[in-house]
Each structure stands twice: as C-alpha cells, then as structure tokens.
C-alpha cells in the first residue's frame, strides 16, 4: 500500500490516449486511484473504521449465533413497540418513513466517511460501496441456501440425518410423482404456447395503426399480480349446478351452455384442471414474449427482408423462413425466461385450488410441505430440486447465446 502517490499518478494516468479512446471494455483505472485529491480528515477515517468494525462484528455475531457458539435469542419485547408492533395506519406509515430515513442516514454516513477519510486504500472504498449488499447476500441468501441444502438431508424436524431419503421420497411416492408430472406439464406447455401466441401476435400487429394499443392490451396482465389474475380466471371458470333456473355466472361455462354442452367443474376435474390453470400463466406470460419478440422483429436488418421479398417470399413463408430464424436468440431468451418463471409458479395454484384436486406443482408443494405439514426435510429437498432444475435451463441459454454470437 503506497499511500503517498495520490496526486502525481492521477495526472499520469489521465493521458487521453491511454484510457479514453478504447471503446470495448472499460480501461482499468490505475490501481492507486484514490478517493479524491484533497486531503481527508482523520475524524472520518475513524468513523469508517468504526463502521467496518461494526459490520464485521455484526456479521460475526450472526454467524457465531447460527453455529451455536453464542446463544442469543431475542424476544419480541426486546424491540420497542413502534418498531415491531404497529397496528394503526399512521403508525405503519410513520414506521415506513422512519425506516427509509434510517437507511438514508446510514448510507450517508458510510459514503461520507468513504469520501472524506484520509488516504484510505482502494479496497476500503470498494468495501464501503459493496459492503451492505455483500453482507445481505452472504447472510441472507448464501447462508440460508447452504442451510436448506443441508436440511434436505435431514428428517422432518431437521433433527436426524437421513441421507437421500427425502429425495427418494420425492421421486418414488405417487403423490410427489404427480407433483413432478404436473410441474413438467407446466414447464413444457407454458413457454411454448405463450411464446408462440406472443410471436404470432407480434408479427400480426407489427407496424399497424393500432400497434401501441394492441400491444398494451396483451401486456396488461403482466402488470397484475398472479393472485389478481387467478381471481379473474377463477371467475371465468365459476361453476353453478346444472339445474333448471340456475344461470351460469362464469363465462367459460356459459359458453359451453350456449353451445349446447353441460357446464363443467373446470378446476376440480383432474387431469384437465391443470391445463385450465396453465391457461392463466399463458395469459400472463404472452405479453412478455410478445414485447420482447416484437423488439427483435423490428431489429431484423432490411436487406434480409428485401432479399427474401425479391425471391418471392411473403406471408407465412416469410414468417417461417426469415422472421423466425432471424430472431432465434430472442426466442431462446424468451423461452428460457418463461420456463424459469413457470418452474417457480406458486401463486396461481395456491389461489385457485390450493394444490387440491391433483394440481400441485413443486413450488406449491414446497410451501405446503414446509408450512402446512411441517415437513421441513421434504420442503428443503423440493427447494433444492427447484434450484437444480434451473441450472440446465441456464446452461442451455448461455450455450445458445454463445452460439448465436459466434455465427454473428
């Protein structure tokens, strides 16, 4: 750590030919790039050091407690009531404002100390910028994930090690096999159908007079919560008994009646109910596919289209032989993104059937096993399954995109 070269080096590195003209990739800033050229104050250095010590101490306490070295167990009463016991509107909103102000205050002190401290090394500045996020990710995502993986090898109370038994259960018990089958059906149908409809729609409305409005209508469901969408579709599927004088109030059943069929219990009759739940997800995801693909279609170079037109291509053949191959990378991204969303879909099933009538999928079963059955071992195994299932999809995407870049 050479602390005394701040000023002169900045001048040397400032030579425009060295750094500023390169466009691909940022030029590495000089390693001894300091926080500023003016002298900092020792007081702020102390503040920064105190902050570091506090952060490291906090994280250490947390981890020591987790691993049972310390035995801190706080009661709810430990915290003042205005922090954890808000019941009225005003107290909640006030707490929200206080929380935001506290956050802003802490971040201000961190940044001020990083800015004003006297001659601190680069890594200290980086730590001030990165520290809060790194702490949260490490203690709030990485550690819990590892812990869950560990618990997936333990029994329902996380007390005894039972090896792969939870995983064996998932793959062999008929109830879980049904869950896996449903998940597979979701993951296959939703991406393909929503991408297909989205693509067709994007091509159909491309450059028409109503394009903006037409796209807005399809995209709207993306804004709505999955719970809201579930209610909307539950109403479509609403069923009244098929009796004299009883009118259907759900659109789907009324359509059946108008066509001369008898009304159906769409959400109860297995295995078709899974398909009717899938419709909701397609309804939501199509807007996403449509918007991304529409942007890709507009990016197809003119000369390709022109050449194809000169060769006499138009309409469906143009779509098949020119449009689809040209937007292949975007198609991969859309398919992968929807697959990953679908794999984790939980809200629709929770809201519409609660996982009953043989409709459960892995994400829903995770919740059910963990919180309703109190079977933490199987719940953890299901969560790990979700994680592992995502990996091949991601690898596929990376491969495809790399391939596309090579061709280009």
């Amino acid at each position, binding site marked *: 750590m050479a602390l005394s070269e701040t000023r002169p080096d900045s001048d040397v590195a*400032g030579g425009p030919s060295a750094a500023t003209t390169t466009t691909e990739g940022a030029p590495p800033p000089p390693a001894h790039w300091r926080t500023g050229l003016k002298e900092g104050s020792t007081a702020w250095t102390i503040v920064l050091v105190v902050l570091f010590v506090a952060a490291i101490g906090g994280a250490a306490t947390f981890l020591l407690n987790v691993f049972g070295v310390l035995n801190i167990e706080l009661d709810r009463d430990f915290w003042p009531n205005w922090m954890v016991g808000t019941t009225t509107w005003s107290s909640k909103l006030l707490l929200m404002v206080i929380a935001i102000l506290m956050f802003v205050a802490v971040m201000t002190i961190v940044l001020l100390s990083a800015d004003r401290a006297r001659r601190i090394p*680069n890594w200290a500045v980086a730590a001030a910028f990165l520290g809060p996020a790194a702490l949260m990710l490490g203690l709030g995502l990485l550690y819990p994930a590892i812990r869950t993986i560990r618990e997936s090898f333990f029994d329902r109370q996380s007390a005894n090690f039972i090896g792969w038994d939870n995983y064996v259960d998932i793959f062999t018990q008929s109830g879980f096999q049904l869950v896996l089958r449903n998940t597979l059906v979701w993951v296959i149908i939703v991406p393909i159908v929503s991408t297909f409809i989205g693509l067709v729609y994007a091509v159909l409305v491309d450059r028409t007079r109503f394009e903006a409005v037409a796209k807005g209508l399809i995209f709207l469901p993306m804004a709505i919560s999955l719970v809201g969408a579930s209610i909307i579709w539950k109403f479509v599927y609403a069923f009244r008994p098929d009796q004299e004088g009883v009118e259907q109030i759900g659109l789907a059943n009324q359509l059946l009646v108008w066509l001369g069929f008898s009304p159906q219990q769409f959400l109860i009759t297995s295995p078709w109910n899974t398909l009717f739940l899938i419709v909701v997800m397609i309804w939501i995801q199509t807007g996403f596919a449509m918007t991304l693909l529409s942007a890709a279609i507009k990016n197809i170079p003119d000369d390709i289209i022109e050449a194809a037109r000169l060769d006499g291509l138009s309409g469906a053949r143009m779509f098949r032989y020119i449009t689809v191959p040209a937007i292949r990378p975007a198609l991969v991204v859309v398919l992968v993104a929807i697959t990953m969303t679908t794999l984790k879909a939980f809200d629709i099933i929770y809201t519409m059937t609660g996982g009953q009538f043989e409709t459960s999928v892995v994400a829903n079963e995770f919740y059910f096993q963990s919180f309703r059955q109190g079977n933490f071992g199987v719940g953890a195994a299901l969560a790990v399954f979700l994680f592992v299932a995502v990996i091949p999809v991601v690898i596929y995407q990376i491969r495809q995109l790399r391939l596309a870049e090579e061709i280009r």
Partner: protein
Amino acid sequence: MTTTGGPPIPPPPAEGLTTTRTAPRKLTKAELRAAEAKTRLTSPWASGIAIVIAILWTVPTFGVLLSSIRPQASIQSSGWWSWFTNPEFTLDNYDQVLYGTGTAFSTFFINSVTIALPAALIPVTLALLAAYAFAWIEFRGRDLLFVAVFSLQIVPLQIALIPLLREYVNWGLAGSFWTVWISHSIFALPLAIFLLHNFMKDIPPSLIEAARVDGAGHVKIFFRVLLPLLVPAIAAFSIYQFLWVWNDLLVALTMAGGTPNVAPLTVRLAELSGSRGADWHLLTAGALVAIVVPLIVFLSLQRFFVRGMLSGSVKG
C-alpha cells in the same frame, strides 16, 4: 437477462453519446415495413386472429370489472354479460370489501404501501452502490465476486425462505415489517446489481476519467456523473421492483403470515379466495383493489414499466 438480438433496455446514455448508425436508413425501413404490414393486414385471417387474441386477453378482466359494480344479488344469479341488457350500478361491493370487518382491504392496502416503498428503495440504492464498485473501482477479487453475485441470480428464493424465517424468529423480528423489507431487499439484489452494472459499464470511460482528472473521488463521481445518466434505468428498475413487491405472494405469506398488522393485499385476496370462494361480489371488488395500483403505474408509466418488466422477468 443477458443481451440478445433485441435488447429490452437500450443503454440509457446512448442518445447523443455514441454514434447513431441506423439513422439514415430509418425511412426506408419504415416504408418497407409499412408496405409489408399493409399486404399482411389485407388478409382477413390475419386481422381476425389478432382480434380474437386481443379479445381473449381483455374479456376476463373486463368481466371482473363489470361484476364489481353490480349488486351482490345480481352477481350471484346471472352472468356479468347480462349487465348490457340490465345495467345496474353500485359501489356497495367496494365499500364492503374495503371497510367490512371480515375483509378490511383498506388496512391491507396500507400494509402493501408500507411494504412496497422501502422494499423498492433499499435494494435499488444498495445495488447501485455495489454496481458502481464492480464497474469502476479496481480491487482484488472483483471479477470473482461479480461472478458470484451474477450466479446468485438463478437461486430460487424458496431455497432461502425457511432458514431466513428462523433467523427472524430468533432475533424477535418475526411478523413485523422489517422481515418483509429485509427479505425483499435481499432477494432483489443479485438481479439489480447485475442489471445496473451493465448500465454503468455502458457509460463512456472518458466521462469518468475526466471527472477524476478534475479531482472528483468515487463518491462524487457516483453522484455527479453516473446517477444523472442512469435516471431512466433506475426508474425502470425501481418501478419493476415496486410492482414485484406489490404483487408478491410467497415472501409476504412466509414472512408476514396472515396478520392484518403486516400482510399485504395479495395475501388477503388469496385467503379470501380460499375461505369465501363463492362471494364473487367481494372477490371481484377485492381483486380490483389489489390491481388498481399496478394498473395506474402501467397506464401512466408504460414506457418505463415495459422496460423494467422485460429486464427483470427472470427474477426468482
């Protein structure tokens, strides 16, 4: 989301800073496509399909909207389409769902607001700082750390929920807003850092170089040079994150449970769907109360909104 043929979010500072290569060709392209579109739409099949899709995508929501203003007795006895022959209008359903003792959606609405604002602001701020460090501060192990954060994106949040909840219980925070805020902030960070880092990298190094020569430190460069250039990206991602939190069910259900002190609208609505699944006057009005904020955001900030949705759609 990684970059592809049709990047969903154009780099914000592109206007005026980089060369606009496509500018002179724009006219011909537009003309070409317009001509193509014309030939296409003369086909009645094509427009027919487009119209059918558009109708399928709007009618369900419209039915709920219409039902929510019909009297309870009418909703239970006839379909919403009979409104056109027998128009009725009432706000009783909304009154009951917002202030009724069993439903009290107004309380849950406040909870949703209280949850969503900090849960959008905190992760975006932290991610901005972290993204800056990854993009513009040189330190040892930077690339390795960035790859680690990058790969955390694919971790489904289910895998972290239960140990996290245990910790909250252990620290006496369970069932308070803090758990929901902290959880949402954590889960948002990997994607937020990755996306904002991409934007930061798009800013020409010469700008930062110039600021540095003028004697600005990292904190000054961050606030004076980068933040102003990143406003569109920040807006898009904040809106995305706000709506993600507003629409979230899983985290809220786990961390807040069903308590009217903390639980947001989505939790209450899902609960209502289970416990009073046939009370369509409450469910339709309740659904609209729950989706009205996203709808307003969508209609008023559509540009940012679409951008944010597209960039964030792979979040777990």
